[in-house]
């Protein structure tokens, strides 16, 4: 008998939800065959069978919340599968085991604490335990409830869920969606956030791209897009205006001398922001390759938590969906986020003449606690300059 355990979920990820079992009790499984899909705040991950044999028990049912190390189910090694064709249950066939209450913690939870959790929805895994080996006592749980009641109800949930009317559907938010919601709201509640705008003439970059896109692709095996230019431009602008690459920690400011640029990617399940590491060391091709690899992982649900941690600045491109103008929300604790938008031919006055130019509005949302207006505007103008005249990137101007 081999236990299927919840794997380590990564830094700062406390729990996961069992999204899907790919096998039923009684099914034959192969070692390393995918059995369970877990969903965490940040990523989905797969749990594979620890052995060849038969899935004999599902302990954590779909929708259950599990902690690292918790038992998910059991595989009996070497056993033969029960016939999958309709057949009377033979004596030897393992009966489906009713899933017991979700495994709430690695250490067993005291009966009183289980009762409190069940009645109040208190997440006991977040309560600091004062009992033996850090176990949560009834007193700890009661104190946590009191603290919860005393905390200002920022978004007090309605006491009873409102009825769902006809022509409405009630759907449980995925963990990813809940995390997005929480983090966006936290950013808004914390930062003194405002947005400055500019517009950029894309003529030069588009010309460069058109001229070299085929050779580029042939040489580097990746398409030349606009994003790499913007990453490069932002890195240079961040070097010029270091405040935008800083974050607040208590009463200190932390200035980062590395440029890890988060690139927001829309996926089926929601927005994720994988990070292009050390972008200042990468060529345009290197950046395109990094973005391509991360984007594929995101769409396949394969992003690891490491892929999304530690960015210093973020770029969000609403233009791919046609957005003309937006005010992006910061990706806390970062102090700046660049919004790219749709490229649109517009009449511009150049040298006293009205000419048609491919234009893009740029938005920089920034944390005014860290970045002054002058810095923010300077940053955005620098990005505009680099894009309008990409040779500056080459010359570090």
């Amino acid at each position: 008998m081999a236990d299927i355990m919840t794997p380590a979920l990564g830094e700062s990820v406390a729990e996961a939800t069992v999204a899907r079992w790919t096998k039923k009790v009684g099914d034959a499984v192969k070692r390393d065959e995918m059995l369970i899909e877990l969903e965490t705040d940040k990523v989905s991950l797969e749990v594979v069978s620890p052995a060849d044999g038969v899935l004999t028990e599902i302990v954590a049912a779909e929708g259950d919340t599990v902690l690292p190390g918790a038992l998910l189910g059991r595989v009996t090694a070497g056993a033969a599968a029960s016939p999958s064709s309709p057949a009377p249950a033979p004596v030897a066939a393992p009966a489906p085991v009713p899933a017991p209450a979700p495994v709430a913690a690695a250490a067993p939870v005291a009966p009183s604490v289980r009762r409190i959790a069940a009645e109040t929805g208190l997440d006991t895994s977040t309560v600091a335990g004062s009992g033996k080996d850090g176990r949560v006592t009834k007193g700890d749980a009661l104190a946590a409830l009191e603290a919860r009641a005393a905390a200002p109800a920022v978004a007090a949930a309605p006491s009873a869920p409102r009825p769902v009317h006809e022509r409405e559907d009630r759907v449980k938010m995925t963990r990813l969606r809940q995390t997005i919601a929480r983090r966006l709201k936290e950013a808004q509640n914390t930062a003194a956030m405002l947005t400055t705008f500019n517009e950029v003439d894309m003529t030069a970059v588009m010309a460069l791209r058109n001229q070299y896109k085929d050779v580029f692709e042939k040489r580097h095996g990746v398409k030349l897009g606009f994003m790499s230019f913007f990453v490069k431009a932002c890195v240079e602008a961040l070097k010029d205006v270091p405040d935008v690459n800083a974050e607040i920690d208590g009463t200190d400011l932390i200035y980062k001398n590395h440029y890890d640029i988060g690139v927001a990617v829309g996926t089926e399940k929601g927005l994720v922001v994988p990070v292009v590491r050390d972008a200042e060391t990468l060529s345009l091709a290197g950046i395109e390759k990094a973005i391509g690899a991360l984007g594929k992982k995101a769409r396949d649900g394969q992003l690891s938590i490491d892929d999304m941690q530690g960015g210093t600045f973020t770029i969000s491109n609403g233009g791919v969906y046609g957005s003309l103008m937006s005010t992006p929300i910061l990706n806390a604790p970062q102090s700046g986020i660049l919004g790219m938008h749709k490229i649109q031919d517009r009449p511009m006055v150049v040298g006293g003449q009205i000419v048609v130019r491919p234009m893009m509005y740029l938005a920089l949302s920034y944390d005014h606690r860290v970045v002054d207006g002058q810095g923010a505007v300077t940053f955005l103008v620098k990005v505009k300059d680099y894009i309008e005249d990409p040779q500056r990137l080459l010359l570090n101007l």
Partner: protein
Amino acid sequence: MAQYDVVIIGGGPGGYNAAIRAGQLGLKVACIEGRGTLGGTCLNVGCIPSKAMLHASELYELANKDFAKMGIDGKVTVNLPVMLQQKADSVLALTKGIEFLLKKNKVDYIKGWGSIAGPGKVAVKAEDGTETVLDTLNIIIATGSEPTPLPGVDVDQKRIIDSTGALVIPEIPKSMVVIGAGIIGLELGSVWRRLGAEVTVVEYLDRITPGMDAETAKTFQRILTKQGVKFKLGTKVTGAKASKTGVALTLEPAAGGDAETLNADYVLVAIGRRPYTDGLGLETVGIVPDKRGFIANDHFKTSAPGVWVVGDATYGPMLAHKAEDDGVACIELIAGKAGHVNYDLVPSVVYTFPEVAWVGKNEEELKAAGIAYKSGKFPFTANSRAKVNHEGEGFVKVLADATTDQILGVHMIGPQVGEMIGEYCVAMEFSASSEDVARTSHPHPTRSEALRQAAMGVEGWTMQA
């Protein structure tokens, strides 16, 4: 001779358990005992033989007083020599068992009286007078305790006896006076009362069993009185005159007043125990015991490097299981592990009938500390198993913090409660609340259900009373 890692002076519960643990952890260890048998006071002249006598005398009393109620007729009589012999046989077998355990764990059991002979040296004087000196890195003092003498009442082990003598009285006394209403006096007094003696307990304080929860002690005294024990509380013993056939005691009210004389066949002095630390060579390593003979310790370390102390020779309750816990923790610390004893949760048991058992704080201690608490109580009269066994006396009382519901103390008087207190020791070690016990399934019908019902009582949902 090769150097030892640990030499333990004393083969009682503190010493022999330390020795076994040391053996388990791969230390080279010797255990010195001069008594001739292992097990210390507890096994040779204390807990164990007294339980043998308590069990036998309880069955005797049960047969003559309660069997008829259950439809069993007939009279049984006491064969005292056999009763004493079966006790001695059990004790001997158990001492051999410990000897085997020491051998199994590769402990050198050295017969003789041990004393410290300077840093890292322990002298052993064998019965034949030869002396050897052991070299060791660590010395553990586990010499235990002895009965405290009472000035003016000199123990001769003939008519004036201590707890050791009370286990081998060769006849059933007609009358016996027990000086001291503590656990030892009440247990041994109960033995001889059941066998036929008229027992009077004389106590200086105005209550019995100091340290026991006051409500429980009051109930306990009422039950013992009903059984025929007489109590003279608040009374001082000022002198004793022993003859060949008995003892004349002079008593005075503790608060002052007229003296009186009390005659008895035997007088048992059971006013407490004192550490046994004389003649141990403490001066050779600069250890100075306190006035009463206790050796101070900090996590079992004495003031002398490499010298440790466990059990009755140092502070804390003078109980075999406390000494055992001390011994294990001390060895673990010597071996670089995290040995620890939770002195707040050392249980106490009085092995009378009914038994009394408690752990944690009593109501008086909680009040004195200003801790707000709730109490849940359940009587054994309402417990089905106790009822059908005709054992309805007593109760279980659970005290829990008024805010957190954490169990702070449990006090029980009733049938075999000593066997059941361990449940609450475990619960409290894990900081359990009364609700945790109340929501834990207990088998029906058992007396242990009373423990659960009392826990329910803390939050007002006792169901069976």
